[in-house]
């Protein structure tokens, strides 16, 4: 219950931050990527601003054995640069540039622009489902080979 509440508070502040920073406006987000045109640096300030508390938080974790509401940290420990990481991120960037929307603003905009945001979120979930399907199939195929 406490963990769920912490998560809700985190998500709510996150969504509020997106709204305050102008990141719910696809034209502004796309503007950051329009480096050779009408460049809008606002997103750089958002990312820079967000990294300040997070950098401090990472330093604080060094002195902690576990987070406040859990018995252990659950953090990614992979360090390998894989084709999936690079190709997937490039693909994400293409989609981001096409509509000026990434997952956070897309979901937060359900409150402000429900039709457009729902279109984006449903499409994004379809993309999630496609990847999950392929990954689960290849995993079960691999298990089939070893049995």
């Amino acid at each position: 219950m406490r963990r769920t509440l912490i998560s809700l508070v985190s998500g709510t502040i996150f969504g509020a931050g997106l709204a305050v920073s102008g990141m719910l406006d696809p034209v502004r987000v796309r503007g950051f990527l329009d480096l050779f045109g009408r460049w809008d640096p606002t997103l750089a300030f958002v990312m820079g601003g967000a990294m300040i508390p997070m950098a401090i938080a990472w330093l604080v974790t060094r002195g902690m054995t576990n987070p406040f509401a859990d018995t252990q940290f659950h953090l990614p420990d992979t360090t390998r640069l894989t084709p999936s990481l690079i190709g997937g991120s490039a693909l994400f960037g293409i989609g981001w540039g096409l509509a000026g929307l990434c997952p956070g603003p897309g979901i937060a905009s359900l409150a402000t622009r429900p039709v457009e945001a729902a279109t984006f979120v449903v499409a994004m979930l379809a993309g999630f489902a496609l990847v999950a399907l392929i990954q689960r199939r290849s995993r079960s195929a691999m298990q089939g080979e070893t049995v």
Partner: protein
Amino acid sequence: MPAFGMPDFAMPAFAMPGQGLIGGLMIGIAAAIMLLGNGRIAGVSGMAARAVGLSDGGAPRSIAWAFVIGLPIGAAIVVLATGPVVARYPMGLATVAVAGVVVGIGTRLGSGCTSGHGVCGMSRLSKRSIVATLCFIAAGIVTVAIVNMLGGGW
């Protein structure tokens, strides 16, 4: 301004550095609460996939749902407190839908998006996140430049 010139790094009048910084600090505090409270990365794509059961492993689904539901709640609170926020969608729903599918596939294959890699991973100096962030920003810049060149810019 020509579609292709030298990048102009002067601060344009339409930029919002102050609001961007304040909103960014809020986003960073939100991610810090998730990290220090629950010991998890506040990555939107990962949490969303986990919430709807399209990701094996990751946060318990209640944690994922609570984070995802919080996003529109937070946006709604800002709108209620300060009035409507600017949100321009000149690109049409078909583009939004295509972009959504591409973003969905890409963020899952790449294990993260602007929040997980860009904010959480970069501030951790994760090599994977730094590479991922450079990749999606570069791909986004190239995409926008190509769309502009083809006359589809907005």
